[in-house]
């Protein structure tokens, strides 16, 4: 069960330590979130500490099982708090004019740290991204930026951004509360039905915004479902992805006798023309555009991706299978390529007379 070697055990121990650190980071973030209210440290720590203990517990179990899910748990604990802290600091910048500049400095520094944190995650996911400067630059940014972040936070605290204060507009006065209660009673009496309970529902911008969250969640879920179930995107065929796809680069360059003028094309007629050969319907022949991705060597950057469209006459449905298949063969002969999709059976089995 315990598969750790010394290094993995050490890293897991450090991760547990960092999750404990996350309790403090979360508490700071909640303090910043509730900057305009009276905060009870013990009460906040009760919640953040409980959540931290839960995450430590789950992380230790997953680490003992040597599951990669432990990384997900670690990120789940840390990712939200970074953004919560940034958002809260932005709200402070907009709400407390006295500390505006310091709050903006805090946001700028912490945002830089979050960006490099994301870069570190990318390196974890794909170590191939790592370059000789990756580790030093990440640490150097921490070293350069962290003192400014700490100083900005001190200035925010010194200028009273986190000093408990009571604000009139957040606390309803006794008279207002009495009015509300009287109104509720009057409404309940007017209905004359004990089964029906009337109550005054207060609506304010933040509450309306929170109602909108339901629609947003439904919208995102629906769009995600449509994307996955209907569009079914294939990243491997994405032109932007293929711009940097260098899998064929050495082979292509090696085959090209002259880098500057020669280009090698990879054609994928199989799917389109195979479809055309097997069907005789007008609908099939209306698909007159067949994408031909070509890979060409450029001057210095290796390969880039271009698309070429091959058009077929609209009268193709009137052609015989022999004509259509000879057209396919001619196109295949023009391009020195290997079909990525096998040609249709009707074409491959067709023999000209």
């Amino acid at each position, binding site marked *: 069960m315990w598969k750790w070697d010394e*290094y993995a055990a050490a890293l897991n121990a450090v991760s547990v330590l*960092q999750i*404990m650190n996350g309790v403090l980071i979360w508490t*700071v973030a909640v303090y910043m979130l509730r900057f305009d209210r009276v905060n009870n440290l013990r009460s906040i720590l009760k919640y953040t500490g409980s959540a931290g203990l839960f995450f430590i517990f789950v992380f230790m179990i997953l680490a003992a099982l040597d599951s990669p899910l432990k990384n997900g748990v670690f990120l789940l604990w840390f990712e939200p708090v970074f953004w919560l802290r940034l958002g809260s600091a932005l709200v402070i910048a907009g709400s407390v004019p006295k500390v505006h500049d310091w709050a903006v400095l805090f946001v700028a520094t912490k945002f830089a740290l979050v960006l490099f944190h994301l870069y570190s995650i990318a390196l974890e996911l794909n170590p191939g991204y790592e370059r*000789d400067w990756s580790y030093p630059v990440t640490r150097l940014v921490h070293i350069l930026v962290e003192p400014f972040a700490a100083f900005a936070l*001190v200035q925010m605290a010194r200028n009273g951004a*986190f000093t408990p204060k009571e604000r009139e507009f957040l606390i309803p006065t006794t008279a207002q509360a009495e009015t509300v209660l009287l109104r509720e009673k009057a409404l309940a009496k007017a209905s004359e039905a004990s089964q029906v309970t009337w109550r005054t529902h207060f609506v304010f911008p933040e509450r309306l915004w929170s109602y909108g969250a339901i629609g947003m969640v439904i919208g995102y879920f629906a769009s995600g479902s449509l994307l996955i179930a209907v569009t079914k995107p294939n990243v491997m065929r994405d032109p932007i992805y293929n711009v940097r796809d260098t899998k064929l680069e050495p082979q292509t360059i090696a085959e090209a006798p002259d880098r500057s003028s020669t280009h090698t094309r990879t054609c994928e007629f199989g799917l389109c023309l195979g479809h055309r050969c097997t069907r005789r319907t007008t609908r099939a022949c209306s698909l007159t555009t067949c994408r031909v991705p070509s890979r060409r060597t450029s001057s210095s950057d290796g390969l880039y991706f271009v698309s070429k469209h091959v058009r077929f006459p609209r009268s193709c449905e009137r052609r015989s299978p022999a004509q259509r298949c000879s057209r396919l063969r001619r196109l295949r002969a023009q391009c020195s390529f290997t079909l990525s999709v096998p040609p249709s059976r009707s074409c491959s089995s067709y023999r000209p007379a």
Partner: protein
Amino acid sequence: MPLSVDCKALPPKLEKCNLDCKLPWGLAWAGLAAVVGGALLCYLRIAAPHAKVRFDTTILYLYAGSLAFESVSFIAMTLSLHLYAACGSGTSTRRPSMPCRCCRS
């Protein structure tokens, strides 16, 4: 001016920051976090009580504690990398000339 360069004589290009490179950088960040956290704590204990306008220092104490944790974590992580990673299963980037200190037979 030499007409040609003997490529074999040149040191290989550094592809990744190896252990000898990671050790100072990791410790530098941990040390900086400790210095900032320590300075913050000194300020909170010495200067903050004498401020003209009193302010709530709770969040600063929490932040100083967070920096302390950060420092300890990164020192532990960097040292564990230095001590243990060289003994891993072929993933070490340690130079062969530097013997591993902790490999167990």
